[in-house]
């Protein structure tokens, strides 16, 4: 048998699909599916999480709040003052599903937060920065709004979903170098968008309660306005306030709400108790 060399045919084992086209298809599919899964599971988690019993919520809250209580100030009259102010914001007949506990934290970052289980964290820097009770009331009202809307629980539920989904995906891709970063990121962005809606709702809630309490909304926005203008003396504004949409938008929204509801915005300011920035509200040297 004689061997006759023939030209080797090309392209038998290589699919002639452009790699970029292939990549675009894959990227699109993965991103779309991951957003879809995250959104759907996120809603499922929220649906489930607001059905958690108050006892369970207390247990979860006690566990979660522990690390934040490192520099907690106890036995301080200011706590009582904040608690009273917070409770006065509830309209008669309105209850919280758990008693709210105020924790005063010695921290020079301006911040206030509410966590699962009704733990209200107030940083001392916030007390040093607010200039009237109306301002403080709006911040507390905002946190109260979050609590009443189950926001801390919802966000916990969402983070659990997020962790679960990304760890499942992470297992599938442990062999793939830098890839996993992309998937968590897409869900993070959805999360941020979602939290803005919650922020707005909490703003409106807080503002509403402030108006109900004082009979007007005047001066309550001053604190946000000072922060938005960067006028606060303490430059260490926490990430919390930075990520919250407290820009001029937020203030405008509240002003628009006031105009819509016919709330008065020009009324007398309610002063803060003297020495709020001092321990136990006893006179101290610290200049504001």
């Amino acid at each position, binding site marked *: 048998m004689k*061997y006759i*060399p*023939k*030209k*080797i045919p090309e392209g038998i*084992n*290589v*699919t002639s*699909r452009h*790699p*970029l086209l*292939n*990549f675009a298809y*894959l*990227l699109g*599919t*993965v991103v779309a599916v991951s957003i879809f899964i995250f959104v759907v599971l996120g809603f499922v988690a929220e649906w489930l999480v607001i059905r958690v019993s108050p006892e369970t919520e207390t247990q979860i809250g006690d566990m979660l709040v522990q690390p934040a209580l490192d520099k907690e100030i106890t036995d301080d009259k200011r706590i009582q003052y904040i608690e009273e102010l917070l409770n006065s914001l509830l309209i008669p007949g309105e209850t919280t599903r758990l008693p709210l506990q105020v924790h005063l934290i010695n921290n020079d970052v301006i911040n206030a937060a509410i966590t699962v289980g009704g733990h209200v964290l107030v940083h001392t820097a916030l007390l040093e920065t607010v200039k009237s009770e109306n301002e403080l009331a709006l911040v507390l009202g905002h946190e109260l709004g979050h609590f009443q809307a189950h926001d801390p629980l919802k966000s916990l539920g969402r983070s659990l979903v997020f962790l679960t989904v990304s760890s499942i*995906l992470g297992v*599938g*891709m*442990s*062999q*793939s*170098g*830098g*890839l996993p*970063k*992309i998937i968590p*990121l897409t869900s*993070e962005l959805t999360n941020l968008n979602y939290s803005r809606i919650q922020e707005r709702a909490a703003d409106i809630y807080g503002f509403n309660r402030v108006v109900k309490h004082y009979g007007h909304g005047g001066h309550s926005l001053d604190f946000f306005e000072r922060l938005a203008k960067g006028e606060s003396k303490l430059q260490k504004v926490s990430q919390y306030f930075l990520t919250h949409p407290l820009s001029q938008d937020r203030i405008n929204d509240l002003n628009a709400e006031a105009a819509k509801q016919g709330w008065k915005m020009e009324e007398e300011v309610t002063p803060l108790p003297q020495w709020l920035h001092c321990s136990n509200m006893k006179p101290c040297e610290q200049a504001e």
Partner: protein
Amino acid sequence: MDALVQILFFVVLLILGYFWGRYFEKRHYKSILRREKKTLNIPIVNFGAKQSLIDVQEAALFAGSVVISIDYFKMISAAFRNLVGGRVTVYESLLDRGRREALLRMKEDAIKWGANQILNVRLETATIGGSSGNNSGPGSIEVIAYGTGVK
């Protein structure tokens, strides 16, 4: 900001991987085609394992092996493919190049020795690093071609 840096890093690596990978692949294919044409006169066949061989004066083993690494672009494409399923087309050209290069190296070695044909040719592959080991870096593939050269 952190996320932005990560994304930027990822995109830069992806673009670099794509263009570098394409460039080397094109160059490699050019060389493969040229050398295949040049060595076409020597037949390579995979028969001979249990058959009686043709009358030859001399026979010797020849092996050609090559290691090719994937680029970042291929790696990411394939990782996405792992999630979606289907044909991993980006790896096809990689393996194709590996097989042909290994065969060519074996063939060229045999031609130098004076073979007029190569019998009982076998191909084997192995992965190095990457998914075969515990580290998650880009993997490489080794293709070994071996056969009996006769003259």
